[in-house]
């Protein structure tokens, strides 16, 4: 049996109370996945990422959402938010908190939306993430029966972040989940949505998530993807964004966890004045592998994008950055900036980076840069001249390198958490975590 067949076999084990249109979509997804098979390194989009660990794995489907309460408390973000929790892809009513949603704001698990044969779900789901995008979106389409649907009525402004926590458990049998997130932001609506991946330390599951975000005129969505899963977890994600006129999408893709993490982020700027900002950070160590593929399609004149991805790589970790800016013919007066900077802390770490520009209009201001290197020696000297020893100076500067992305993060809870995590990963005796705390305390005072 081929790997795709082995995966699809699990489909027959699912409960089958889908409405007929959902069933048809699953079939299409399954057929497409089977036809494409798992990607190999001969595919340009997967040149630096080997997914055999996924293809050769044996993943069951979880059937319950039990999770240790104390551990849950320890891992969740300490944030006042509307919270929806999935455990190994299964919705946990007990851990979720969705009360008090303002008028015009709908947040519910996908299963509920699907079984209600929700017209909105039917209309929007899969519109951006087609089964042809990658074998993994096809696979997700075949399996997805849980996830989150967020719908904002025109003008609705959500007072608190919408916090989606996806937890991965360490069981004897590895499991896979195929969550689907759908965010439909009506005209001039505003929301912050957090996808937070975390879980038990030894979890070795496969998460294959697809997120679709539709922004109507003037809508503003801040989207966080905070990846803090176990260093044994496998994770493939694609985020598809469609932006109408004057909308703004801010992406924060923060990657600390996972054994293999691949994220595709695709934005279509379809209306004049639409603006996308991509902020990315990955800090990897051990044998972690993280691959970020981003694409901004400037389909409409006067659209803007600004991308800044930073990577810090230690030990034998492997980082991949592929950022592409596409400017369609006649899409004039475009501004697109892209930057990727990486810091290698170890001789055995590797980074492969490819910032691409594909441009078919002439009235554009596009630039990109990629740098990989070491810390600024003049800065190291300046710190040493104040009595700070060299390793600490380097640790501080590494933290600073990360800080340039973190400064853009609007949710302090997340910025602080990531800075602390980074500080904690640098040599312990420097107690950078303490420095960070002091700085926070001074800030608050």
């Amino acid at each position, binding site marked *: 049996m081929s790997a795709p067949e082995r995966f699809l076999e699990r489909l027959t084990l699912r409960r089958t109370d889908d409405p007929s249109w959902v069933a048809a979509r699953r079939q299409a997804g399954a057929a497409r996945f089977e036809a494409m098979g798992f990607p190999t390194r001969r595919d340009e989009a997967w040149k630096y990422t080997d997914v055999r660990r996924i293809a050769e794995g044996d993943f069951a489907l979880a059937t319950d959402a039990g999770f240790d309460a104390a551990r849950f408390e320890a891992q969740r973000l300490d944030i006042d938010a509307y919270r929806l929790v999935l455990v190994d892809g299964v919705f946990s009513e007990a851990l979720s908190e969705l009360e008090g949603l303002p008028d015009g704001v709908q947040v519910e698990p996908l299963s509920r939306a699907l079984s209600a044969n929700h017209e909105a779900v039917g209309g929007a789901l899969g519109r951006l993430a087609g089964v042809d995008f990658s074998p993994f979106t096809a696979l997700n389409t075949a399996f997805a029966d849980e996830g989150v649907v967020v719908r904002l009525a025109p003008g609705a402004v959500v007072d608190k972040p919408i916090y989606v926590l996806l937890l991965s458990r360490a069981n004897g049998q590895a499991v896979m989940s195929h969550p689907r997130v759908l965010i439909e932001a009506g005209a001039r609506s505003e929301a912050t949505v957090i996808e937070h991946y975390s879980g038990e330390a030894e979890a070795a599951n496969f998460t294959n998530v697809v997120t679709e975000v539709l922004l109507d005129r003037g809508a503003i969505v801040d989207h966080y993807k905070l990846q803090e899963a176990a260093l044994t977890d496998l994770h493939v994600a694609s985020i598809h964004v469609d932006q109408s006129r004057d909308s703004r999408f801010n992406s924060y893709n923060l990657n600390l966890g996972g054994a293999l993490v691949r994220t595709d982020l695709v934005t279509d700027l379809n209306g004049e004045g639409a603006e996308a900002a991509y902020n990315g950070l990955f800090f990897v160590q051990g044998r972690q592998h993280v691959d970020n593929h981003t694409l901004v399609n400037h389909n409409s004149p006067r659209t803007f994008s600004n991308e800044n991805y930073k990577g810090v790589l230690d030990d034998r970790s492997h980082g991949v950055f592929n950022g592409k800016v596409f400017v369609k013919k006649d899409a004039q007066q475009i501004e697109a900036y892209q930057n990727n900077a990486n810091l290698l802390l170890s001789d055995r770490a590797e980074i492969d980076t490819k910032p691409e520009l594909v441009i078919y209009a002439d009235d554009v201001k596009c630039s990109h840069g990629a740098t990989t290197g070491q810390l*600024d020696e*003049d*800065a190291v*000297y*300046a*710190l*040493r*001249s*104040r*009595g*700070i*020893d*060299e390793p*600490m*100076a380097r640790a*501080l*500067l590494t*933290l*600073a*390198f*990360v*800080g*340039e992305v973190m*400064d853009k993060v609007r949710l302090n809870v997340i910025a602080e958490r990531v800075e602390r995590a980074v500080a904690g990963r640098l040599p312990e005796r*420097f*107690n950078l975590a*303490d*420095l960070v*705390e*002091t*700085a926070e*305390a*001074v*800030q608050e*005072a």
Partner: protein
Amino acid sequence: MLEVKDLHVTVEDKAILNGLNLTINAGEVHAIMGPNGAGKSTLSAVIAGKDGYEVTQGTILFEGQDIFEMEIEERARAGLLLGFQYPIEIPGVKNIYLLKAALNAQRAARGEGEIPAPEFMKLVREKSAEMKMDPSFLQRAVNEGFSGGEKKRNEILQMLVLQPKLAMLDEIDSGLDIDAMKVVASGVNSLRSADRAILLVTHYQRLLNHIEPDRVHVLVDGRIVKSGDKELALELEARGYDWVLEESAA
């Protein structure tokens, strides 16, 4: 406190200092003046351990210890601190990080524990108020986007927090307007004490109206050719450097 003996320094094979002698005692404020290119900045850079300067001859003792045996950070922890003429910008490293890390490094070198957070916060707030710096500066990256005056004030703030035994200030007055100069000068003056020394390196006399030196030295061609009290500075201001050059040549 500081004893420089027969110091010869070359930069990229070019001799800059040619047998410089200088002794500074605790409690004293010294000013080194001289025309451009005389080697003024080289002296402070060598004392602070900056790269690219080759000491071909001579010694520098700080409290009896040969500083060439000490790493840069060891010198700083021992109390030798240089205020830079052109302070570097360090994107992303908050001032507060730098101050706390530097202070704790100094304390650790003295065998003291880390400064308790509340005490530290009180200290930095006090000192930044003294330098007329808004506390928000502490959260900003070191010197990033600072004006020339702000950078210089930040250098003095670091001195006030780290309380060096010998503070060397390299052209600390350059690029300052009169108000900023007063703030900087009062910061420096607050450092004056019986157990501390200050070394000012400056091209102009005007700084010395605000920080009164005990000794003034004229550095020409890598050597101190004339020393005197603060009157010498005034004379230099009035007559320029040429007469000193002629005098030393004679």
